[in-house]
């Protein structure tokens, strides 16, 4: 490789742009971290310091004073994550298998197209009827309402994940089992599920994180009881108050985002693979 000055400049520029892009992507996270580490009694300076000068961990403890139900919100987010992923798995695994394996099935194409279409849906599109339906079922202000409503929006992609993964696996083992006299229903738990473990993990991680993190608008409308609020809604109440105590709030947000971020980073392979499969057809 000819190392002339043109090449060096190009390399430098690439590094520079990469750093600038990362700064853009991590800026608010950095802001959150330094604010949560800054002692809250320090008076604010303008312009604010770029690098933390004094450190303290006290805001993390104080966050629990500011947000008395913080542990409860955490638990609730977990419940929503677990609930949404459970329902998504229950529905997506058999449906995905059927759509992936049985290619001659009469309604296969319409159903698949419907799944792709439904994947585009977001809560705002069905907000009003979901509220009305939940209200008439008496489910408003219960965990169920948000779990059920939240699942609506993770089931399509979960199904698609299963469908595309199944298609990459040969059907010999299932065929052999069928010939041996195994019923088609037994095949599912005994053979299919173990075989499709990677897809199942993708579905679980995707729907768990979605259920955990992204129920803001659904919770806003369906939940008024503080005891049932997920972290996003619970913390939002403290965000929108006058004289927001930013240090403690940022500490609370930092602690709250740890779980989805850590989960995401650990399972990023599955998520990325899932998303790639979900939006493209290889």
């Amino acid at each position: 490789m000819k190392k002339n000055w043109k090449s060096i400049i190009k390399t430098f520029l690439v590094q520079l742009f990469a750093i600038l892009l990362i700064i853009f992507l991590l800026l608010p996270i950095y802001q959150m971290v330094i604010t949560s580490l800054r002692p809250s009694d320090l008076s604010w300076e303008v312009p604010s310091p770029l690098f933390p000068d004094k450190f303290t961990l006290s805001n993390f403890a104080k966050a629990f004073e500011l947000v008395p139900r913080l542990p409860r919100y955490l638990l609730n987010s977990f419940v929503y994550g677990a609930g949404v992923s459970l329902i998504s798995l229950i529905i997506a695994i058999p449906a995905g298998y059927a759509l992936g394996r049985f290619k001659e099935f009469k309604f296969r194409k319409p159903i698949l197209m419907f799944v792709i279409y439904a994947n585009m849906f977001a809560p705002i599109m069905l907000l009003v009827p979901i509220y009305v339906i939940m209200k008439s079922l008496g489910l408003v202000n219960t965990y169920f309402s948000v779990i059920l409503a939240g699942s609506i929006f993770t089931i399509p992609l979960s199904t698609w994940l299963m469908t595309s993964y199944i298609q990459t696996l040969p059907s010999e083992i299932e065929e052999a089992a069928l010939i041996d006299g195994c019923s088609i229903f037994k095949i599912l738990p005994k053979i299919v599920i173990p075989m499709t473990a990677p897809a199942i993990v993708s579905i679980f991680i995707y729907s768990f994180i979605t259920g955990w993190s992204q129920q803001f608008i659904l919770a806003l409308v369906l939940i008024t009881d503080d005891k049932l609020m997920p972290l996003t809604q619970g913390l939002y109440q403290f965000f929108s108050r006058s004289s927001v105590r930013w240090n403690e709030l940022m500490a609370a947000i930092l602690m709250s985002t740890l779980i989805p971020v850590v989960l995401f980073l650990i399972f990023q392979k599955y998520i990325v693979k899932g998303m790639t499969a979900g939006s493209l057809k290889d």
Partner: protein
Amino acid sequence: MLSKKKSTPIYFLLPLIIAAAIFIIYPLYKVVELSFYDANFLNPNNRTFVGLENYKWLFNFKLFNPNISYFLSAFLRSLLWVGGSLLLKLVLGIFGAMIFNSDRLYGKKVYRSLAIIPWAIPWAMAAMMWAWTLNSQFGIVNSILLRLNIINSPISFLSTPTLAFITTFVVDAWVGLPFMIIMILSGLQSIPESYYEAAKIDGAGDFRIFFKITLPLLKPVILTVSLLSLVWTFNSFDIIWILTKGGPLSATETLPVAIYNISFLFQKFGGIGKASAMTIFQVGFVTIISLFYIKTLERGEF
């Protein structure tokens, strides 16, 4: 052969079909039905049939701007806002993917892992973090701009109409950027090295390679990812709600925000009937884009 069986799938598909019927088809039907009624979210059953009144209302009712109807301004605002966010996502997405794919970059893996972090953050929390980051007195953005002497006095990013509009879609772009980068990156990685080598042998410069080889080959990925992002951005609510709640002066009141406001805040001249009529358009837009999307997928195999 398994793939020849025609009947068994029904049992496996039953949960999906039932769930879809109850939680997607029925609500969609309800949206259409409610759009012909006047009702309040506190008492949804106490409703009056109004026929096409709500649809007339969509185009006649003016609120803060006496020149254009509330609904139309929200819809157009959505289109503009989405356009801004999508454009930013595409430009930065392609740019970012190219950079993170470049052989000249040291520590590619680290950059990629860092780049997906915004994706992991719940939108609501991302919005709260950004609100603080953009704070006019204590936020780091103003701090940097002041120190670099780019500005003399702090900028209030969320308090003036135009700036708030831009700021909110930039934050939305931030949220969607990792997905964009990862998708385009995987598209980039599927372009065979041989194409580049051939071009370099021919003496092509970086820009020519990009525009004549890379971009055309990325078209399918860019198309699918744009359509997806278009719909997701069009449905975006959390970010605007937390940053500006639709203000100032309705500058950031996109269709989703307007639907929420009409449903739950403006009971005198709003209500879920009118909100349903608005939702029809929200759903309509998504449906049209979805049809394009499905067509694009069909060009690959099924």
